[in-house]
């Protein structure tokens, strides 16, 4: 579904992605973790070309995204993206946030788009908030709406860029639950997160990134119980016992 082949990216002198190769198969859930500044957010943003790359290839659903001939808008419509800061449209109601792209990009009928949006809101447990505006919702609720908005384009793959990092601790669970349900429904997912509980329970594979390189790639159990690389060991130790 997604294949990175020898991807490089520089921000001026900074080598943010250094020869990244990675495959995410259809139906797979891959968690990407690593210290901040390691390039994991950049990595996930290259999939739908919110960030361009300098060399290498990224194939999504059979199309090379770095090829100038690829219709990026068509591709992005098939890839759902959930942001750290939700990025809901504050001037639109919850329902309109979800129906905007189906209406404008897919040219769906209003009635069908509303029906779809209500089903999705049901799924994330927020049908009763359809007429609310984003600023009236809690962070956890906003992120669930953002997930519903991403799903409204009926994407082939969902990307999550630190979906719970901006949330109060007691709201993280509700978002992770929605993501877990999504994974269980067979959605292909690539998730940048520090939620190791989620990684352990839901991920098929964990990828550890440091200094723009993938330095470890393993099944969750193996990654947590028996990390190979020193940097990964240190990272896990810090996550589990941050005070030491």
């Amino acid at each position, binding site marked *: 579904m997604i294949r990175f082949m020898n991807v490089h990216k520089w921000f001026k002198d900074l080598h943010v992605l250094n020869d990244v190769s990675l495959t995410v198969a259809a139906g797979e859930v891959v968690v990407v973790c690593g210290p901040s500044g390691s390039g994991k957010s950049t990595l996930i943003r290259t999939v*739908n070309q*919110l960030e361009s790359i300098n060399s290498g290839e990224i194939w999504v659903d059979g199309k090379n995204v770095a090829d100038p001939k690829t219709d990026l*808008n*068509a*591709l*992005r*419509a*098939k*890839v759902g*993206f959930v*942001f750290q*800061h939700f*990025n*809901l*449209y*504050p*001037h639109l109601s919850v329902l309109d946030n979800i129906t*905007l*792209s189906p209406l*404008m*990009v897919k040219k769906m009928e209003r009635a069908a788009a509303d029906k779809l949006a209500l089903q999705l809101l049901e799924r994330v447990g927020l049908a009763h908030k359809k007429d*609310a*505006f*984003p*600023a*009236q919702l809690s962070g956890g609720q906003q992120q669930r709406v953002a997930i519903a*908005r991403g799903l409204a*384009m009926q994407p082939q793959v969902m990307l999550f860029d630190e979906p719970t990092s901006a949330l109060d601790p007691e709201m993280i669970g509700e978002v992770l639950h929605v993501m877990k349900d999504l994974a269980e429904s067979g959605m292909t997912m690539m998730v940048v997160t520090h939620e190791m509980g989620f990684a352990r329970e839901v991920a098929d594979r964990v990828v550890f990134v440091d200094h723009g390189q993938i330095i470890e790639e393993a099944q969750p159990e193996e990654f947590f119980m028996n990390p190979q690389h020193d940097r990964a060991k240190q990272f896990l130790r810090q996550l589990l016992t941050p005070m030491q």
Partner: protein
Amino acid sequence: MNYNWDWNVFFKSTGIGNEIYLDWFVSGLGWTIAVALAGWIIALALGSLLGVMRTLPNKTASAIATGYVELFRNVPLLVQLFIWYFLVPDLLPEKAQIWFKQDLSPATSAYLSVVVCLGLFTAARVCEQVRTGIQALPKGQNYAAMAMGFQQAQVYRYVLLPQAFRVIIPPLTSEFLNIFKNSSVASLIGLMELLAQTKQTAEFSANLFEAFTLATVLYFVLNMSLMKLMGWVETRLRVPGMMGGAK
């Protein structure tokens, strides 16, 4: 000060036909409003377009808009008006020159010049406000819309501009009032708007103080009403939960 106030002057005959001075003020106010509204339509349309251009990744588009703003902001309004009224017509093709100078009534040609002048001048200022409005939005809004597969035009139409315009209603209101006030420059090319009628009344009747008092009151009431109108528009467009909007 030894001055005989006579507020009845407005109901006295001007000596021309059976007009009273008040008629002149009403007609002047009408021209002022006609100039300002037509100019505002140009300013808002062109200014929004330029403001969007200044935020585009396309360097050429943004350079053109920047150049426009610099040019129109750095030349005095009155100089611009004289250029539009006295010089530009001479640069037109011959047929258009004859039309402008002979076929049109003097009032109409003055009206066209001042509307174009104020519209283009104010567009530069509207442009800057639209640009700041767009740039003040979180970057994530642009990303979110792009990630959904929107074309650039759709990103602006459905996501960025509806938010940007809400943010800039207050400065846009000042610009809207400015165009009404600036319309008084039209008196210098002979358009009988409110200020020109005031001066004429003062000269004809010698009731200088009454004439300018009435003009001041009319400008004030007009602008206060516009301010109230825009305040109402702002409240109507307020988004629940945001910036003091109703919960």
